[in-house]
């Protein structure tokens, strides 16, 4: 089951740019792009940092989506 995140939607809702987010979390902008496009799953540490950064519950940020058969 792939992990889906709603980071892009929440980021745009809060009016945060990728560069600002990268500066605040000390990650590269390319990593943010990869996470938002579901091409990379963040580590546990980074996931917890994202939760603290956006101040949202985990189910709002990440979810497991069953694969379509």
């Amino acid at each position, binding site marked *: 089951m792939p992990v889906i995140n709603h980071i892009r939607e929440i980021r745009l809702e809060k009016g945060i740019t990728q*560069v600002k987010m*990268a500066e605040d979390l000390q990650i590269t902008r390319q990593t943010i792009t*990869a996470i938002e496009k579901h091409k990379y799953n963040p580590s546990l540490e980074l996931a917890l940092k994202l939760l603290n950064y956006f101040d949202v519950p985990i189910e709002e940020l990440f979810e497991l989506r069953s694969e379509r058969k």
Partner: protein
Amino acid sequence: MNKEKKKEYLTLVIIQIFFSICMVIGVWIAKPIIESEQGDFWTIFFSAVTGIVLFSVGFLYLRWYKLKKRKHNVPENDERTFNNIINAMAWSAFLFLLICSISVFALSFSGIQQIEVGWLYVYLSGMWGLLLLQMIIGKLR
């Protein structure tokens, strides 16, 4: 190919050309300085060292200039970057050992009988054994 990728490839090409130029400058500087019976070995050694030093200085300067020009505090490396580097190193090691194993078979059937070839055969066999061990350990895990 998007703009960023083009920029990346161009940077790599420029670095390679710069490295080659540094090596040539190193050979040009070291050759007249080193004059002895074993001049060829020391020429190559010192020219290589000079080239590497020139390249490192140039690389560090370019890096400093790039960091100075940057307007924001975004890092260049993070967990994903390191994972990509480690994966790339693992694949490189795997391919190298694969080539070694093929070379071992080619050497063993080549029919050449020299001490140097024999040592090469032993070395490459060791590399091949390492790959086999790595595969066995990976399979067991």
